[in-house]
């Protein structure tokens, strides 16, 4: 009876956007008299961080601090259409729509600033500080709050913009499957270190090495959250999760988290994560989708590590202790 160690590998790609396209999202943006730009959407944040990265993208395009951006989302009376949050599409689609809206709003902002500063809009610049200034003479500048007040009460101008992003729908060719399914592809490689107890069949994931390429990273902390949270979910898929442990039998459906077994904090493995950036030509600032893919490569990496540890090749997921033990028995006989 012993604890056996193994290492396994898996490498994957993942598409961004609703398969085959045809999934628009819109954004509207306007400044109030507070000099704050409000983004109106009908998009949903599932916890992945949309309410954070969309203001970041708008702030970047407007050239303003993120503190001067507010997000108002997910009311179909006040927010323009969005197809929804799925298919790793939200950052890509909504991000592109917000850039388009923010560009229009920025142009309006520069035009009013030009009137206030006695310059041409093309001569103006921003540096993320909240000031619009003459590029060759930075002392001539106006703060966004003063600029918004002037736009509203002096010039009768709105600081606003409209944005939409649509990847047009393409039907696959029925005979060959020729199609244009995605906007870009993200990539990952997972290396899993596991130990297998050959007496109990229990598998412990000791460490996961996660390497990702996601285009441009909008927010490194949120990307780490997605990578490590997703890796943990992938580990759960690999070792624990099934609604029907004797599938296809229908008589063991779970009714609570006592019966639907998930790993707890004690099972969370050590992780080391690295991201490399190859900005996408289609994404907002080059971002690709990372919403879904992070649970994928850990599954095979863990299964391959189990084989490396004990010689049992598991071809049915999840890799339960029972399946490991049956595999070990088969090796002995």
């Amino acid at each position, binding site marked *: 009876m012993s604890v056996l160690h193994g290492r396994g590998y898996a*490498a994957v790609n993942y*598409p961004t956007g609703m398969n085959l396209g045809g999934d628009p999202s819109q954004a509207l943006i306007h400044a109030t008299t507070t000099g704050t730009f409000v983004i109106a959407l009908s998009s949903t944040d*599932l916890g992945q961080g949309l309410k954070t990265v969309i203001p970041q*993208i708008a702030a970047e395009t407007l050239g303003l601090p993120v503190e001067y951006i507010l997000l108002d989302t*997910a009311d179909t009376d006040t927010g323009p259409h969005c197809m929804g949050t799925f298919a790793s599409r939200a950052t890509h689609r909504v991000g592109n729509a917000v850039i388009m809206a923010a560009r229009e709003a920025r142009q309006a902002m520069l035009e009013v600033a030009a009137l206030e500063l006695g310059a041409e809009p093309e001569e103006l610049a921003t540096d*993320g500080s909240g000031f619009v200034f003459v590029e060759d003479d930075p002392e001539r500048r106006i703060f966004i709050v003063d600029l918004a007040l002037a736009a509203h009460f002096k010039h009768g101008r709105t600081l606003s913009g409209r944005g939409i992003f649509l990847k047009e729908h393409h039907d696959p060719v029925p*005979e060959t499957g020729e199609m244009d399914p995605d906007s870009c592809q993200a990539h990952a490689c997972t290396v899993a270190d596991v130990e297998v107890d050959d007496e109990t069949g229990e598998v412990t994931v000791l460490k996961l090495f996660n390497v990702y390429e996601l285009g441009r990273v*909008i927010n490194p902390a949120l990307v780490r959250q997605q990578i490590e949270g997703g890796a943990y979910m992938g580990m759960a898929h690999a070792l624990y999760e099934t609604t029907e442990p004797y599938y296809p039998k229908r008589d063991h459906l779970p009714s609570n988290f006592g019966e639907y077994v998930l790993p707890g904090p004690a099972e969370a493995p050590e992780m080391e994560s690295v991201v490399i950036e190859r*900005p996408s030509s289609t994404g907002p600032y080059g971002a690709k989708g990372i919403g879904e893919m992070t649970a994928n490569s850990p599954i095979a990496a863990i299964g391959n590590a189990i084989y490396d540890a004990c010689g049992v090749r598991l071809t049915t997921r999840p890799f339960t202790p029972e399946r490991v033990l049956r595999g070990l028995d088969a090796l002995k006989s």
Partner: protein
Amino acid sequence: MTELIDHDYFAGDGDDLHVVGTSVTRADALGHVTGRTQFFEDLLLADCLHLKMHRSERHHALLKRVDVSGALEVPGVVRVLTHEDVPENWYTVLRLIGVEPNDQPVLPEDRVLWRGEPIVAVVAETEASALEGAARVEVEYEDLPAVLTMEEALTEDAPIIKPHGANCFIYEGHPCRRIRFGNVEHAFAQADHVFEWRYESEPIEHAPVETTGCIVVPQPNGRLKIHSNTQAAFFTLDNTALIIGGPFNRLQLVGGTVGGGFGGKVDVIVEPIACLAALATNRPVEYVYSRLEEMQVSSTRSAEIFVVKDGVMADGRIVARKVTCYMEAGAYTGHTTYGVTKCAAHMPGPYSIPNVWVDAYCVYTNRTPTGPMRGFGVTNADFALETQMDRIARALEMDPLELRLKNAYRDGDLKAHRKVAEGAALVEVIQRAAELTGHELAEEYERMSSLTHAGVGV
């Protein structure tokens, strides 16, 4: 914690960005950790009614008699709803993107197709009386032969459980979504090795902390305000309007804060019937799944089967890959037809293989309808493909990362679905993973790049 981003790969622009690329604090973090985030169920309304379902106890059966009189006698029960109360009872959620036919009833008419299928909605003053009312509904069944596995469903003499005449979705005249690229049979004949293995995956629950639900509130102007945790506000609004019978602008959907979705909250199951209950009673109605319902009757990730056959040369080049996959829809199409096409588009994984054949089936069984889940069509496929790669490496006694690098797709490669690859980076994530784990690669693999076809491979 080590620096997340390694700028040594694909070094380029980005230095003039101010906000993009910085770790701005999550907008919802403080609300979540202090318990102040408002979820839909935090809306407390004094006159809110509760909806619970009486559900099928059979896998496949005719409904001979449905008697709701017992439910109506329960104190607190205000109303029951059957299929007769649903104006446009037959639907399929992806009709919004052109999928046909409408194969799913909101509430069944003459038969049930899965154990757990809702039959009668009971609306009551309290959750307890709604549950009691639902328990008092009496249903007389006449069992029909049930099909409980995908393999059984596709056998020739299997009972056909769907009115369109097949136990699989029909893709433009084909029983499966197809990819045909090159000539796999010719390549198998030329290959040094042919490996064929099978992989299976069981259903997975989305397991959100917050269960699926909504509260529908009739407005003074006659409109309905839907407070929902849907992942897709307008998708849910449009599907709901079609079921309850327009006009679309009678509905307002408010949401955007979701306690875990993972794909399970794109199903549009709770909102339409809750809207009808609110219209029938002119009172707010809450329909939220219990944990048991979330686990037993909400959709799951499909069970899937993959048979992967590869033709491989002695040096590790994969010259042909034939994939037959089966994705279980359960009793109704739902989103599975989409997931199957996405799965086919994903094949043969991140590799450049000159001959690819895919038959991807969307299979109906008398089981809980499945739904989209994180990595729809891809997660289980990657389990199969990447286990297959490990087995090939073992069989050829090759380094597992070098086998992948040898076959990795790069910029300019024509994919099996005939799109030219761009923005590839599989080579680099593998190289970086090797570096991270002290895994030595032969120099020819160290030198590879996604940007060029120089070096290993073709």
